[in-house]
């Protein structure tokens, strides 16, 4: 007689096989490739070379710099996204402005636009001399800003990323605010709490789990960023906006050095896992 636990197995098997085929096998195969010298430029490549690819990354200054740039990008993007999204949510929650339903719909538009389209639009809008934004700034303020200079390029792209994803935070957080129990908030208001006190002492602690969840989602999202950077600057000028994904793409698909690119991707995977675990622990510690 089959045990109680073995009964669901046949039902789960198709899904399990599918997951093994599309997730586990590529992952294991990726690990294997990272220990080889596979390059599409060299037909006889693919021999095992141990930790060679990983060790070479220690001397690859470009890779290390691109990792640092990625962290900067992620920090700017997440912070701005959360600030704008949460700020807008409070605005709508407390003041419920006229036409708020319309605004809610309009704010969601950026999420629905493909990142490549956003990148292309912003690239042409922000390009000095021929871009509309540059033209407006020049006409009204009288000075010229090069949004894609070495100093500003990465920040510009991070802000464009924040522009796209702030509505996502706004939509989720506003829903969370509207679902909060009214009791504690009304009690605090009766006790004469200001809006600032209400937010910092009542609402933020109550919504901490949702904020952390959004933080994790955005962290993983922005660590995967590729499209906008590729379209807007392709990592330039120089290497000023070359984040790790772009570097991996360049090494793997432009230079065809597949094994080294896979090794970098695996390191990135560990970085994402590590950061997510840290945040999840914070999440648990926060009483979520």
């Amino acid at each position, binding site marked *: 007689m089959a045990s109680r636990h073995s009964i669901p197995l046949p039902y789960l098997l198709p899904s399990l096989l599918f997951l093994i085929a599309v997730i586990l096998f590529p992952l294991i195969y990726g690990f294997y490739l990272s220990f080889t010298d596979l390059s599409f430029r060299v037909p006889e490549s693919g021999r095992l070379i141990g930790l060679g690819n990983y060790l070479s990354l220690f001397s690859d200054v470009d890779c290390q710099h691109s990792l640092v740039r990625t962290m900067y990008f992620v920090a700017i993007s997440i912070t701005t996204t959360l600030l704008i999204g949460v700020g807008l949510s409070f605005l709508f929650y407390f003041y419920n402005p006229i036409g708020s339903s319309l605004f809610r719909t309009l704010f969601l538009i950026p999420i629905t636009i493909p990142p490549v389209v956003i990148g292309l639009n912003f690239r042409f809008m922000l390009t*000095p001399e*021929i871009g509309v934004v540059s033209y407006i700034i020049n006409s009204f303020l009288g000075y010229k800003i090069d949004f894609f200079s070495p100093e500003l390029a990465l920040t510009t792209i991070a802000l464009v990323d924040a522009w796209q994803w702030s509505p996502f935070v706004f939509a989720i957080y506003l829903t969370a605010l509207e679902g909060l129990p009214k009791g504690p908030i009304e009690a605090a208001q009766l006790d004469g709490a200001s809006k600032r006190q209400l937010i910092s002492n009542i609402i933020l602690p109550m919504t901490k789990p949702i904020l952390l969840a959004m933080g994790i989602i955005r962290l993983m999202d922005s660590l995967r960023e590729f499209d906008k950077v590729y379209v807007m600057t392709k990592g330039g000028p120089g290497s000023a906006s070359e984040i790790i994904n772009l570097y991996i793409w*360049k090494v793997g698909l432009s230079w065809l050095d597949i094994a080294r690119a896979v090794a970098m991707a695996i390191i990135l995977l560990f970085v994402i896992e590590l950061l997510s675990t840290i945040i999840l622990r914070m999440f648990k510690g926060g009483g979520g």
Partner: protein
Amino acid sequence: MTGAESKKVDRRSFLKYAATVVATGVVVGAATYYAAPRPKEVTTVTAPGAATTVERTVTKTVTAAGTPTTVTTPPTKPLPRLRAIRYDECQWGGEKKTYPAFEEKTGIKIDFDIFDEPTCREKMVMDFSSHTGIYDTSIIQYWFLPEFAEAGYIMPIDELLETKSAEWLKVEDLAPAGMKALRYKGHQYTLPTYLNSHLLYVRKDIFEEEGWKVPNTIEELHAILDEFEELKKKGKYEDIYGFAARGRRDFDCFNAFAGFAWSYGARLFDENLKPTLLKDPAWKEALETWVHLLSKHGPPGISNWSWPEIIPAFDGGKLLSFSDVNDIGAYFEKIPPEKVDYQPCLKGPGGEYVQWFFTEGWGINKDIKPEKIDAAWMWIQWTACYEMQKECAKPGGNPIQCNLKAIKSPEVIEAWKAQGLERYFKAAIKSIETAVDPLLYSPGVPQWVEIAETFATEVSAAIAGAQDVDTLLKNANEKIYRIMEKAGYY
């Protein structure tokens, strides 16, 4: 058995019988179609030149340019259908336009898969490296040729060229620089279809107003730009920038500065394939000028510009001059031709002309089925032949074809004259004639893309002001050395 059950079974049986009847009909119909003898049809298509006969079950007597050629395929064997991959750019417009004639004349059908440039490369590499043989023929840009040839992804055409060339294909009409660029280790891998070379574009109206002549040398250009800067400071031409060129870090921007440095006599490698950036003073002189021209006379953000930004800027009246490839002149929309002048022969201090090279051709994939090789070869010849290139070179297509006889034909020149672009067209032809073998100043090794992208990244950073030229040269030299070392050259 209930009435409902009985009805259900009847319907199912009916569907079963109906499906059997339909399937039998399809099989019998198909078998009859293929088994039935067909009358031998003879079609004659006439075009300028003598007759070419393509013999098969359906025989068509067709005419292509040049002298008669006979391509014979056994009547029982259907002509193969090819699958081709290319990226979408100006040359595709001409190929698309002339493909129906190719199909009609040869009976060979080609299914084209068209992608954007990076996707096209990725798909080609995947197909080549996994040996799936999906594509029979692929467009090969000259900078990818060494890596594809070295990896054995494409086959040389030397034997085909020697033994199976159509008489209407005149290889001697093709630009020599184009032919050379598509050779690797002594083997020809394809025939060039179109060729880009350098052209300096200037605002003729402003030059005339200021009494300047189109510069013949880099020194003259420099002097004019300095004078222009002075005029800008005085408030004239305030919204116009003196000069632009590709400053982006893409590998395809490499030829912009490497071709410029060639005019100073700079070569990338010495005889041992070691980079010469620190040894050869020509590099420093050339790149100092290049970085100065772009950073001081170029628009803000030029370190991130490539042709998609340069063309609208010049077209929109924002640039006094720019340096790029010679087919751009055919695509201005706003600026009238009488306001533009051209210099195809800009001489550098080294006594050489500034270069900017690009070419491409259709290659035959190594995994192609043997019975398809002749058909693929026919397509390659077609894309380089006089008749096709003449059609492609006319307005609406890409003016800069590789067949010099075709682009110099009175018919084509007249067509461009009618567009008011005769001066441009003659300058563009002149620039092709002065194009040198690009391997003199570009890598020519399978690591082409990696080297070019690495070098272009350093140059882009210098243009943006993130580093000086000495650091640029030091970094680029070191990185290129490492790439070559890793590849086993030393």
